[in-house]
């Protein structure tokens, strides 16, 4: 393993997040390694979705919210004055809980991100659309129907379309916010395979309420509760020899 692969890609330093007066995150510090999958697990309402949304500043749009602490992408503060949030979100892509294709054709869904980022060359767009769909393991299923509306796809296909859409703008980090919570087990397996392959090229952070999923796909796992980070470490260790009693109780199913 080369040293570059071990570098910390994105890191939070003691972040707290407030929705108005309510604190949703308390002093959370996590470092996600480059080209690794970091999973966030914890009971509902533990702040894992809030956390992942701070990483591409999608949390900014919540009125009355406030963030304390620092988040560093490649060592640079993502809230620094000279950071363009639009460029940040291009570099840190996101796949949402429910598949959210746009009501456009399959092709235009993928091309959308390219067009808004100023790509006009038709051939280049075409090439990237194909590359992205291949990257999301969807190409073979849709190559003959690129002009069909994206809503004609099944739920699992829609979610892979959303992954392809995120890949198209060539991000460095991809955030998955419970990507499988709205799709069936077979489609879930496909997406898990996909995540496994994506980590060759991308840094992946995934929120999941499914512990088995975290165990299957991730290299590192963070366990959160009530807005606090309880334990963070290599997935193998978290699931076999958790250091904290709370973590053990959670992964053994004593609560959740």
């Amino acid at each position, binding site marked *: 393993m080369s040293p570059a692969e071990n570098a910390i890609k994105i890191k939070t330093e003691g972040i707290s997040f407030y929705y108005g007066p309510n604190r949703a995150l308390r002093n959370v510090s996590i470092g996600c390694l480059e080209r690794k999958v970091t999973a966030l697990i914890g009971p509902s309402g533990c702040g894992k979705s809030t956390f992942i949304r701070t990483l*591409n500043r*999608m949390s900014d*749009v919540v*009125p009355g919210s406030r963030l304390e602490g620092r988040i560093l992408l490649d060592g640079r503060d993502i809230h620094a004055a000279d950071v363009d949030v*639009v*460029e940040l*979100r*291009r570099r840190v*892509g*996101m796949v*949402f809980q*429910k598949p*959210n294709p*746009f*009501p*456009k054709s399959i092709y235009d869904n993928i091309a*959308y*991100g390219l*067009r*808004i*980022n100023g790509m006009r060359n038709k051939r280049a767009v075409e090439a990237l659309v194909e590359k992205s769909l291949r990257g999301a393991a969807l190409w073979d299923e849709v190559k003959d129907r690129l002009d069909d*509306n994206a809503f004609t796809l099944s739920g699992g296909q829609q979610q892979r379309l*959303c992954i392809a*859409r*995120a890949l198209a*703008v060539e991000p460095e980090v991809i955030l998955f916010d419970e990507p499988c919570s709205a799709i069936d087990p077979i489609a879930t397996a496909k997406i898990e395979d996909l995540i496994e392959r994506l980590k060759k090229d991308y840094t992946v952070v995934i929120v999941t309420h499914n512990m088995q999923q975290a165990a299957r796909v991730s290299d590192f796992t963070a366990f959160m509760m009530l807005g606090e980070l309880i334990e963070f470490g290599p997935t193998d260790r978290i699931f076999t020899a958790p250091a904290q009693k709370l973590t053990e109780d959670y992964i053994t199913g004593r609560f959740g």
Partner: protein
Amino acid sequence: MKISTRKGILQAVGFLALRAAMGLVLAVLVLFLYDIGRKGGGAISWEFVSQAPRKGMTEGGIFPAIFGTFLVTVITAALAVPLGMAAAIYLHEYARQSRLTRLIRLSIRNLSGVPSIVYGLFGVILFVNVMRFGTSVLSAGLTLGLMTLPWTITASEEALKTIPNSYREGAMALGATKWQTIRTNVLPYAVPGMLTGTVLGLARAAGETAPILFTGAAFYLPFLPKSLSDQFMALPYHLYIMATQHHAIQQVRPLAYGTALVLIVLVLGLNMTAVILRYRLRRKQR
């Protein structure tokens, strides 16, 4: 009696009541259209819609009134459509949801309930006197525009509300700016709804008398308006004159019904346009 049969009877009675309510509304509408059609149909001819009134408006047609209504509606649209859509976009997409925006929204809703004669008087003061546009097509159009504005804002905002937040989040997560998101991933899907509400508002404006009464509509003009600062004849006002103010009311009654018929067809046409427009735009997206 078994509970299930009682529930069944209740349901049947409920449906019947709902059907009757709808039937009543429809019956009134049909009766109304039938009456106007029967009494006004005879007056309709090519001459009626293409020529000016003659002999103290006892003969001839209503072309100047049709033309005037068309012209004033264009001005109304020019003010109310862009401003209404822009205000709605601001209110729904940009403005923070605070007490102030709630107050603004409430005021807009209230404005749409203000009687049209009040708009008429306001138009006289603002456009005719203060801004010195005189009694003219422009003053009347702007007055109607103001009156329509609350409707277009409300309708446009309702249309924006129907666009799922996931479209906005999805676009922004790909690196779209707020405006790019709105322009490319919100407005295209909201515009059909916005247009429908807007055209309905315009149709209502086209049929209004009170706001144009003091701001530009003329009793009778021997010529068509040549510029926006001329007075004009308008269908609703013409109808009002023919029905209540004319010196030979009995004699011109068929003409009055004819005018009413033309006005209704015009307004209905505008409403149909809205429906067709929405249908077309929606289908194009699928």
